[in-house]
């Protein structure tokens, strides 16, 4: 089996485990009533490690998995949101952001907060106005606390993601960023 296919299978397995943990453990980790979002974090790590295309693909499937367990919003809303976030993170990493040790936590913070806001904004545009009923203060709180969770968890998750995606086209082209990813020397088939 080619390294690319193996990488896809490992990333698929990672998404499966992540949604299991998300639906089983995340609700116990609420801080100020807000739970972490592991799926958006994996999407961000995919964008950081593999670029815009990998970010978009992983974001789409991560979002679709999330949508399967939501009943108030239509299937595809999280997929759309995470796909855009993953692609944006990947594009920024490839073309704009400078390598830095704090890059992954900083991007995780900003992108997670953006994902929460984008989810509500897209939902509102697509007729899900109930997402705004809890008020702006709740949205700000969700964005901030989710972002803090992502910042804290970004380094270990990025290491796990880089391990899962090793050998994939995106990582081969872009190389994992510094500060948390496994070093490029340890990756096979570069």
């Amino acid at each position: 089996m080619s390294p690319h296919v193996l990488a896809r299978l490992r990333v698929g397995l990672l998404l499966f485990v992540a949604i299991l943990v998300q639906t089983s453990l995340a609700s116990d980790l609420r801080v100020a009533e807000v739970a972490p979002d592991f799926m958006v974090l994996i999407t961000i790590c995919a964008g950081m490690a593999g670029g815009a295309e990998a970010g978009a693909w992983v974001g789409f499937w991560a979002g679709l998995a999330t949508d399967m367990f939501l009943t108030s919003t239509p299937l595809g809303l999280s997929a759309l949101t995470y796909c855009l976030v993953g692609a944006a993170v990947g594009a920024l990493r490839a073309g704009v952001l400078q390598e830095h040790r704090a890059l992954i936590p900083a991007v995780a913070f900003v992108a997670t907060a953006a994902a929460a806001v984008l989810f509500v904004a897209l939902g509102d545009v697509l007729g899900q106005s109930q997402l705004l009923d809890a008020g702006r203060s709740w949205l700000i709180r969700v964005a901030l606390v989710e972002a803090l969770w992502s910042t804290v968890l970004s380094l270990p998750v990025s290491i796990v993601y880089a391990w899962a995606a090793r050998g994939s086209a995106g990582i081969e082209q872009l190389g994992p960023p510094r500060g948390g990813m496994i070093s490029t020397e340890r990756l096979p088939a570069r």
Partner: protein
Amino acid sequence: MAVYRRPSRTRYVLAVLVLAALTLVTIDARSNGTGLLSDIRSKVSDGFAPLQRGTHAALQPIGNFLTGALDYGSLRHENQTLRNQIVALQQQSVQAAGEEAAAEQVLAEQHLPFVSGIPTVSVEIIDNGSSNFENSVTIDKGTTSGVAVGQPVVAAGGLVGSVQSVSAHTATVILLTDPTFAAGVRLPGANIGTAQGVGRTDPMRVTVDTTNLAAPKVRAGEELVTSGLDFEKFPPNIPVGRIAAESTSPGQAEPDITLAPLVDLEQLSYLQVMMWSPQ
């Protein structure tokens, strides 16, 4: 820094994925909880339920530990020795206490006074809901146990919510604090109102219908129950909440009422689904 070499392919992939997501959103939003996508959701929910149940049971001690760790700030006034003792005792007794609490809860819910002869099904929560924009829980019974969409769900204190979606072996219960939840409530002076969820952290909001009646005089602390009028989603006299605050602005006929749920929605483990439908 490496340069990503295939922007046109990336744009193409992104466009396809965005279109796919928008198509799914459109189809699902128009199908109103029926159709192929709902079936897929049900099947996934059913297939995932045993795994979810097992993972939930396995990870619950970790979750409990982390929850305790996250609440550390509120306990800082206690001295170190006492904290250590508490942690040690918690570790020893967590299983026994959990089992005892579960047994007490199940026993308490076997004789709910407000159920008044309506058959119920005891259910256990297998997922407390990890979304920050939806207040729901997943229960371990579905259509094979008689659970159906719209059925009221109660606990020892009163109303918890209603069944939002159901598959063969699981169901999702939308909690009464969710913004999509609404229930008719009885107010003093033969008035009727609608209690509406606002969000996880806020009390419910009550809209008063005072057609041909004097505005209701309500007091903070008063308990409100479901009205059970024709075409209402809930049977009458289920306790919904306690009035947290009421005020009447100058020039306004109806008071602004907020309602705190009687059931502690953060401590739910076992629930009762009432086998009741409006028809």
